[in-house]
C-alpha cells in the first residue's frame, strides 16, 4: 500500500520537475522511487491490510504482483533511457508512466469494483497518450487512436458488467458480490433468487477484461497498437500492463466469481484454445520481430489461460511465475530490438543478420530471450510452461495440454526466425552503450537463474 503512495508521489513530483528544472534527473528519481517502493513491499511482506474502508486489500498475492510490476518498471526505466533523452515532454512522459504503474497497482489490489474501474482508467488513459507519444510518426498516432477506441469500447463492456452486478447485489464489494444470495438488497431478488442479469454482468466483465489481456477473439487491436507505439511503450504494454490486467482477471474470476468457476471453465477454455491457435498461427506470418512479439504476447496469454482455466484456485502462483518469466524474456528481447532498431532502422528479421559474429553479447541475449519465450530449458520460460502443463495434466486436461504443446512448437518456428537470421552473414557491428550492456547481462542472468532455481521467486 505504501508503495502506491510512493509511486503517486514520484509521479506528481515528475510533473513538477519541469518547474524545478530537474528534467535531467527525472529517470534517476523514478528509479530511486521504484527502489523505495520495492523496499517498502519487502518490509510489508508479512502484513495483510485493508485500506480505504476495505476498498483495497493487500495480501501477499497482491503484494507479490505489485512487487513484480515495480521490478519490471525498474528495468524498464533502465532500458528506456533513450525514450527520455530527447528534450521533448520528458516530464509528461515519465509522469504518465508512473501513473500507469499506480493504476496497475490499483488493479492488482482492488477489493471493490470502483477501484478496479478507477485503476483501469488511470492505466488506460495514460497509455493512450503514451502510445501516441511519437507525434511525428503516423503509426504511433494510429496506434494511439486505435487503442483509444478499442480500449474505451472494452471499458464500456466492463462498466456495464459492473453495473449489472451492482444491480443484482447492491454492492461493489467483492466479498458481497461473491456471495450474491446474502448480499441481495432489493426485495425482488430476495424472493426470486439471483437475477439473470447478474450472470450477464459477469459475462460482460469477462469480455471487457479479455479485451484488456488481449485474448482471442478480443485481440484485434493488439498487433497494430504494439507495432505502432514507440518501442519502449510497446515493452511497457507487453509487460507491466499485461501483468496488471491478468492479475485483475484472475482476481475477478477466481475470487469474486469463484462459485461459478466450473461454469466459466468451458468458456475460458474456449477463449484459451482460440488464443493459442489463432495467435500462434498469425505470428508465423510476421517478418517484423516487433509485430511478431506482439502476436507472441497474445499467444502467451493462451498458456496463462490454460493454467487459469484448468484449476483457477491453484493457478495464482503459477501465473505469477509465468508472468515474471515472460516479462524477463520480453524485456531482454526488447532491449535488443531497441538497439537494433535505433541503429539499423527497423526491427524486421533480416536486420538481425550477423549479430552472432559482430556482437556476440547482443546475439546471445536475443537467443536467450527467444529460447525462453519458446520454452526451451533450462530458461525461465520453460519452467513457466512446465508449471502450466503440470497443472493442466493434473486437472486431467491431457488433450488441451497436447494442443498447447503443438502450438508452442509453432511458437518455436517463429521465435527462431531472428535466431536464424543472426547466424547468417550480415551487416556491420552495432555499438552498445555501457548501461545497455550491463542491462543485457543482468537480464540474461535473471532469465537463466529463475529457470534453474524457480523456487527463488515462487513466493505465492
Amino acid at each position: 500500500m505504501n508503495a502506491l503512495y510512493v509511486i503517486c508521489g514520484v509521479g506528481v513530483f515528475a510533473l513538477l520537475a519541469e518547474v524545478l528544472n530537474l528534467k535531467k534527473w527525472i529517470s534517476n528519481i523514478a528509479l530511486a522511487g521504484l527502489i523505495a517502493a520495492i523496499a517498502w513491499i519487502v518490509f510489508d511482506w508479512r502484513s495483510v491490510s485493508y485500506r480505504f474502508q476495505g476498498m483495497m486489500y493487500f495480501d501477499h498475492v497482491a503484494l507479490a504482483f505489485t512487487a513484480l510490476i515495480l521490478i519490471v518498471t525498474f528495468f524498464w526505466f533502465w532500458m528506456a533511457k533513450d525514450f527520455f533523452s530527447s528534450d521533448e515532454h520528458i516530464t509528461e512522459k515519465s509522469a504518465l508512466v508512473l501513473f500507469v504503474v499506480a493504476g496497475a497497482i490499483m488493479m492488482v489490489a482492488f477489493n471493490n469494483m470502483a477501484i478496479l474501474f478507477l485503476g483501469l482508467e488511470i492505466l488506460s488513459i495514460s497509455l493512450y497518450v503514451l502510445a501516441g507519444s511519437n507525434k511525428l510518426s503516423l503509426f504511433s498516432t494510429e496506434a494511439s487512436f486505435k487503442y483509444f477506441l478499442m480500449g474505451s469500447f472494452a471499458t464500456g463492456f466492463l462498466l456495464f458488467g459492473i453495473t449489472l452486478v451492482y444491480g443484482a447485489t447492491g454492492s461493489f464489494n467483492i466479498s458481497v458480490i461473491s456471495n450474491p444470495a446474502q448480499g441481495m438488497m432489493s426485495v425482488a431478488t430476495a424472493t426470486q433468487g439471483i437475477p439473470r442479469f447478474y450472470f450477464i454482468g459477469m459475462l460482460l466483465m469477462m469480455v471487457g477484461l479479455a479485451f484488456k489481456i488481449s485474448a482471442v477473439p478480443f485481440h484485434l487491436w493488439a498487433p497494430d497498437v504494439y507495432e505502432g507505439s514507440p518501442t519502449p511503450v510497446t515493452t511497457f504494454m507487453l509487460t507491466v500492463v499485461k501483468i496488471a490486467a491478468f492479475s485483475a482477471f484472475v482476481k475477478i474470476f477466481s475470487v469474486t466469481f469463484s462459485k461459478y468457476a466450473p461454469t466459466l471453465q468451458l468458456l475460458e477454455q474456449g477463449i484459451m484454445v482460440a488464443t493459442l491457435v489463432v495467435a500462434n498461427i498469425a505470428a508465423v506470418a510476421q517478418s517484423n520481430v516487433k509485430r511478431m512479439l506482439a502476436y507472441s504476447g497474445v499467444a502467451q496469454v493462451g498458456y496463462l489461460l490454460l493454467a487459469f482455466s484448468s484449476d483457477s484456485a491453484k493457478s495464482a502462483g503459477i501465473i505469477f511465475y509465468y508472468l515474471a518469466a515472460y516479462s524477463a524474456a520480453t524485456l531482454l528481447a526488447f532491449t535488443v530490438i531497441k538497439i537494433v532498431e535505433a541503429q539499423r532502422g527497423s526491427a524486421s528479421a533480416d536486420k538481425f543478420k550477423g549479430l552472432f559474429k559482430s556482437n556476440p553479447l547482443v546475439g546471445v541475449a536475443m537467443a536467450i530471450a527467444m529460447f525462453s519465450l519458446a520454452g526451451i530449458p533450462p530458461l525461465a520460460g520453460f519452467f513457466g510452461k512446465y508449471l502450466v502443463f503440470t497443472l493442466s495434466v493434473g486437472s486431467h486436461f491431457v488433450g488441451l495440454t497436447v494442443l498447447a504443446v503443438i502450438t508452442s512448437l509453432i511458437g518455436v518456428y517463429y521465435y527462431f526466425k531472428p535466431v536464424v537470421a543472426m547466424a547468417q552473414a550480415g551487416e556491420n557491428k552495432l555499438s552498445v552503450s555501457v548501461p545497455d550492456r550491463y542491462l543485457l547481462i543482468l537480464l540474461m542472468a535473471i532469465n537463466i537463474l529463475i529457470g534453474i532455481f524457480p523456487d527463488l521467486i515462487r513466493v505465492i
Partner: protein
Amino acid sequence: MLTVVLIVLPFVAALLALRLPQQLAGRVAFLAALAELIVSVVVLFHFDKTGGLQFVFDKHWIDSLGISFSVGIDGISLLLVLLTTVLTPGIILTAWGDTSKPSSYFSLILAMQAALVGVFVAQDGFLFYLFWEMALIPIYFICLNWGGENRGKITLKFFIYTLTGSLLMLVALILLYVKTPGTHTFAIQALYEAGRSMDLPHQTFVFATMFLAFAIKMPVFPFHTWQPDTYTVAPVQGTMLLSAIMLKMGIYGVIRWLIPMVPLAVKEWGMIAIILSVIGIVYASCIAWVQKDFKRLVAYSSIAHVGLISAGTLTLNETGMQGAIIQMISHGVIVFGMFYIVEIVSARTHTREMNQLGGIRNVAPILATAFSVIMLGSVALPFTSGFVGEFLLINSLVHYQLWLGVVAGLTMILSVVYMFRAFQKTMLGETNTLTASVGDLTRQERFVLYPIVILIVLIGIYPQPLLDISATAVKNLLSVYLDVRFL
C-alpha cells in the same frame, strides 16, 4: 560424487574455453575431454559388475515440486558414458587447426558432452528431460552457425522435429508424475511404479508419446526425414555428435524410460514399433544404395543400423537387449570413423559426389586401409565389432518372430551392397585429376583414426568385458517382464 564430476567438468571447461583465444581453446577443450575420459575410466575400475546403480548422488533441488538432482551409474549408463568420453576427445581433435572454428565452437562441443553424460546418468524424470533438451541446444548452434548451405531451414526443421517428440514426452512424464502418490515426485522408481499401475489406455498414451520422442531422435522410419538433411548440412563434428552419441539417447531412452515404465503397453504395441524399425532398415538401405553424395549415404546407412538396434531392443529378451547395447557402442565408434573418412576425402577434393572420386587408394593407401576396416565393421564382418551386435540382434529377432528376423537380416546383405559400392567408387579405380592430389593421412588424422580401427577389431574379437558390464543392469530392467502381474 564422480558422476557429478562427469557432468560438471566439461561444463566448466566449456565456460573456460569461451574466454580463450581459438588455438588455446582447442587445446584446453581437448585436455578437458581427456580429463573427462580419465574420470570415466576411474569410474570403470571402481564399478562393481554385479551391483545395480552405483556412484549415486541425490540432492533435493526444487523441493516444492519433488524434483531432485539425482544421478547414478549402472552398467548400461556406464557403457554409454564411456562411449561419450572416448569419442569426445576425438571429435575435438578433428577440429584442431580449423581456423573457421572459433573458441565458442569447442565450448559448444563440451557443453554438449556435459548434457549427453547427464542424459545417460539422470535418475530423475525432470532432470532427464532437462538434459535431454539441453543436449539439443549446443548441437543446434553448431549446425546453425557452422553448417553448410541452407542451414537455417534445415536446422530449424531438425529442432522442431525433435522438440515435438520431447515436448510430448514431457506431457507423458508429467502424467506419470501426477500419478505418483502423496506429494508428487520425479524419482525414477516412483515413476516406474506409477507407470506400471496405470491401465492400458493410459500406458498406451505414455508409450505413444515417449516412443515418438525416442523414435524421432534415433530416428526410426517414418520419423527420419529430418536426419539425412541435418547430417549432411552439419559440420563434421556436429554430424559425429549427432550420429555417434546423440542418437544413442533415443535408444537409451527406450531401454531406461520406456520398457520398464509401461510394460503392458510395450507388450501390446511393441510389435508395431518393431515392424516400423524393420521397414526402416530395408527402406534406408535401399535409399543408401542409390545415393550419389558420400555423406548422405553414410547418413542413410545410420538409419538402417539404428532400425535394427531399436527392433532388437523391443523384443524384450536378454539377447536383444545386450546386442542393442553392444551395437550402440560399436555403431558409435564406426559411424564416427566413417564420417571422419568422408570429411577427410571431401576436404581434400572439395566434393562429396562419389562419381567424381575414384582411385584414392593409389595415392593414399593408409586412408584407404582405415576406410576398409571401418567399412568392414559397418557391414558386420565377423571379428569386427559390428558383427557381435548385429548377430545378437538378429538372433533375438528371429526368436521373436522368424520372418521379421529374416527381413531384418537383410541389413547385412544390403549394407555390403551400398558400402562396397561406396568404397569401390571412391577408393578403387583410376585416379583422376581431382583425386590425384589427395594426400595421405596426417599425423593428427592418424591419431584419431588408429584408435578407432583398433577399437573396431578389439571389440569384434573380445566383446565379453563389455557384455559383462551391462549384464546385471539388463537383467534388472527386464525383471519386470518376469513378474507374473504383467504377463
